């Protein structure tokens, strides 16, 4: 989606790091959501500008995304300085200053008195991301014909031997494996593949209830996802091409037809 041919190797490397930053509420990469507006590389300094679907989007999530951008881009060995720039947001000024100085969210918005600690929010949404990824893997396995008893007995090793043909299922499998590891819920090949977020294994008897709980998580997250994608596009509607040439935003929104089609 950001496959502009004019990208330098360094810009490309930054975009690849940005693929790893998710919106905590939606568990989807910022780059897929089209939130990242521009990447500028000047020698060893990287500036990333991002814009959310509305001026009112939760400051807590905005801050987590800004932190994520900083963290992921800083991993590149040649990067000395990362500057993150949140645009057109009600808290943009305070937040940009704080993130770029490495201060906390509480310091950014002077929330100490109400305990403005994002650890709790981060954990709530990490659990939800885990559940959503788990549901998509379970649904994909059911579509292959695996029943509740079999899924309850599934080990990590068995999951790793599955080769989905559907690319989306394959992607979710990888993402689920990753978050299983992050939460330390399954590591050895013999570990149950489908624990709940607290580590309680899936059982055949509990299968229906588990799927019901996971569905509820997905319904909530999809609501946000559908709304945010749409609102973001509406918000970008004001953006028009300059002199008939598509801008980076056009590339991000897939508004640029493939060259062959454009003739």
């Amino acid at each position, binding site marked *: 989606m950001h496959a502009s041919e004019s990208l330098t190797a360094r810009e490309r490397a930054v975009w690849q790091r940005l693929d790893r930053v998710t919106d905590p509420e939606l568990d989807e990469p910022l780059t897929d959501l089209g939130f990242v507006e521009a990447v500028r590389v000047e020698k060893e300094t990287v500036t990333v500008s991002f814009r959310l679907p509305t001026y*009112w989007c939760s*400051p807590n999530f905005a801050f987590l995304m800004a932190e994520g951008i900083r963290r992921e881009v800083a991993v590149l060995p040649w990067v000395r300085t990362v500057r993150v720039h949140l645009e057109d947001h009600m808290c943009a000024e305070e937040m940009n200053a704080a993130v770029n100085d490495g201060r906390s969210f509480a310091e950014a*918005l002077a929330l100490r008195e109400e305990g*403005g600690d994002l650890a709790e929010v981060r954990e709530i949404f990490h659990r939800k991301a885990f559940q959503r990824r788990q549901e998509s893997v379970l649904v994909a396995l059911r579509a292959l014909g695996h029943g509740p008893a079999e899924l309850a007995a599934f080990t990590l090793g068995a999951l790793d031997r599955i080769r989905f043909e559907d690319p989306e299922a394959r992607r979710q499998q990888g993402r689920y494996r990753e978050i299983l590891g992050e939460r330390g819920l399954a590591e050895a090949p013999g570990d149950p593949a489908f624990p709940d977020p607290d580590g309680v294994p899936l059982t055949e008897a509990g299968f229906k209830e588990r799927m019901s709980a996971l569905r509820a*998580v997905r319904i909530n997250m999809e609501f946000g996802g559908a709304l945010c994608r749409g609102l973001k596009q509406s918000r970008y509607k004001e953006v028009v091409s300059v002199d008939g040439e598509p801008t980076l935003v056009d590339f991000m929104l897939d508004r640029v037809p493939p060259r062959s089609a454009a003739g």
Partner: protein
Amino acid sequence: MYRTPDGKEIFVIDGHIHYWDGSPENHRNVHGKQFIDCFYAYHTNLSPESERWEKSKFVKYGPEDVYRDLFIEGPDDMAIIQSTHLRDFFNTGFNPIERNVTVAAKYPDRFIVNGACDPRDGEKALEYIHFLKETYDIKGIKFYTAEWNGDSKGYRMDEPAAYKCLELCEKLGIRNVHLHKGPTIIPLSKDAFDVHDVDYAATDFQGLNFIVEHCGLPRLDDFCWIAVQETNVYGGLAVAMPFIHARPRYFGEVIAELLFWLGPDKLLFGSDYAIWTPRWLVEKFWAYQIPEDIAAERGVQLTDEIKEKILGLNAAALYGIDVPSQRAKLAASPVSIAAE
């Protein structure tokens, strides 16, 4: 009145509408502009293309527009106006009750106008509730728990100040408490979409009905859980409704969850006019069936009887509207378009 394709007449109460002034002249600051821009993005993004308005009409429309869109071109019989003040953003407020009562006075028997208040105003909030009851005889009131007020970034319905307001509402017979628990708008450090405060308030105020606007989306599971425990908790479908067009399967999943947990008597239709207009929403809703696999999973389906409840009968019960006599009253003063 909505007439179904087979000729049945359905009484429609639109549970959530606005009569706002979001025009540039009324913006107090950039927040006012951003607020109406955000609403407009909701509008353009989830409305079918044929139903989209020009921005200039969207930011400010007249009483004739409301009347035509809801009652002449639209299928509504009545509508509940939810007052929203936002005086920090708009010079004369966004859709304050003073503005809302003007359209209600112009078209009698059509509107239920609800008040709004902020418990953080303390004694002033209580005085204001008295004023609302005496001046406008309100039957319902809206609380916007994620609203900022000075240094405060929101409040909960189980705080002492909110309880004082609820006690007074109960005493004065303002029985319907609408809570904005939904998307948008500035929750801060906490998960401010949280709906658990409603659980406490609903338990402690059995004489009040709590209508959770937007069904707590995106916290539908928590909302369903609470609504199962508390018999006086209802779900307002505003904002969930337009997904019927943009994401019909997803709409089916949401409705199936709500019907499974809450049953058909606790859900209220709402267009959120002027973000969306009611005609296409009601037409699509009447034609809608929950996809079979989802319906089978949850053992529920949207029957005509259930749709009729959601579209009007449930709200009529909450607001003490006697449907046959209201129908007769409205039939006696048929809709008419003012000279335009």
